[in-house]
């Protein structure tokens, strides 16, 4: 099980994946936006997205959970 967490304070711009989706290594899960820069958050291994903890428009803090991949 892998927890995908935010590395910095950011806005959730786009949610690309969905709960239940099977993703491959390197797949884009969400795209964050911080200080006018887009920051894609990628899956670090193949698996299924068992939990998606953010929605578009959310403001997240460093360390917040974004998704769980199993």
């Amino acid at each position: 099980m892998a927890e995908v967490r935010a590395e910095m304070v950011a806005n959730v711009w786009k949610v690309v994946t969905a709960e239940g989706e099977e993703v491959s290594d390197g797949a884009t899960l969400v795209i964050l936006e911080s200080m006018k820069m887009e920051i894609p958050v990628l899956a670090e291994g193949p698996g299924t997205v068992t939990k998606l903890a953010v929605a578009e428009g959310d403001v997240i803090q460093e360390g917040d959970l974004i998704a769980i991949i199993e």
Partner: protein
Amino acid sequence: MPDTAEPGPAVLESVLVANRGEIARRVIATARRMGIRAIAVYSEADAGLPFVREADEAVLIGPPPPARSYLDAGAILRAARDTGARAVHPGYGFLSENGLFARTVIDAGLAWVGPPPSAIEQMGDKISARNLMAAAGVPVAPGTTEPVNDAGEAVAAAAFIGYPVMVKAAAGGGGIGMSAAADPEQLVAAFETARSRAERFFGNPAILLERYVAPARHVEVQILGLPGGRVLALGERDCSVQRRHQKVAEETPSPGVGPALRARMQEAAVRAGETVGYLGAGTVEFLVDARTADFTFLEMNTRLQVEHPVTEMVTGIDLVEQQLRIAAGGDVSVGAGPCATGRVPASGHAIELRVYAEDPDRFLPSPGTITGWTEPSGEGIRVDAGYEAGNQVTQFYDPLLAKLCVWGPDRDEALRRARDAVASFRITGLKTNLAFHADLLDSEEFSDGGYDTLVVSRLRP
């Protein structure tokens, strides 16, 4: 309705600054120096910033997201009405190049501190701007003359233009939404990315392609459109030091521009301004082919630029003062009175270093709380700071913390002063790119002056 406000008194009674951070602070400072009542608007995220405190009045206009604060024209105009503001200065970014906002300000009976809305609209669309410039005899790079609607059209156009091509948002600005493509496969990817960014950041999916010149220098010319139609050129700025197509450092004069090229570029910039009936401060951006010294029109920015201080430092002209004078219906004070010869003397060399809240190696954003802030000082140093110790730097706005500007009697002395200034600028609590600026100033490429737009990629491969 007239295209510009009717001439008013020689000096504005008041001005509302529709912006934030360092530029709001800087405009407020000149306005107050001129005896003009300065009104700030701010979002909840910016309540503690110096610009709010330094204005004569400040109005809270919304929560942090720009769409609900600094881009909210209704909230800004309500603030103008409630404070009795007689003019609006839009700064840069945000609504500064929004022709509809300019028209709304004018229709509300306020002075718009900027060019006529028609000039904003003509130059705001990069496709129409290129076509207009080409018709006026200003050199433009090979590129599309109509919006590109899909990847297939892009590939067909590129076959005609020739690779490499730059893919850009037609309604774009600030270097956002651009990428280069060296072949059809890269082009298809670049096109899709540019399209979604164009929609997201500018609300307009129109895309254009241009032949990409490399190696190139990004050199822009500051213009001032005077009442009566004349346009002055106030020298050029080299803005080739960029990361993610955004400027990081600028200088004037450009070490890559000799007197003959300078004269041709200034003449082209003046022609560009005259073509759109320009009034006030503006900038015409060019790309200079580093090998051939040919130059082509990139875009025109119908507003004050971030890097305007370097021009101020070598000419002795306060550009915001000229903007406010022109907006009041008065004439400029360039030189010893209304400028007769059209030639503005410049002396020395000036460099600006943009201090960003980002790490100095990969340039990733670093929001946070500033725990310490010590600015450099000394001969020829000017710091335009948006923040101070105790402020929170949030993720909602661009990462600019301050502009460190240095003047010297020549480039070598300016570089020496800049190195010292960077070394003594201390900001703690978040990451900054000061260490990158130290590397830039120490690099042979920048010290020699022979750099181009790929210099940052060579310093940070």
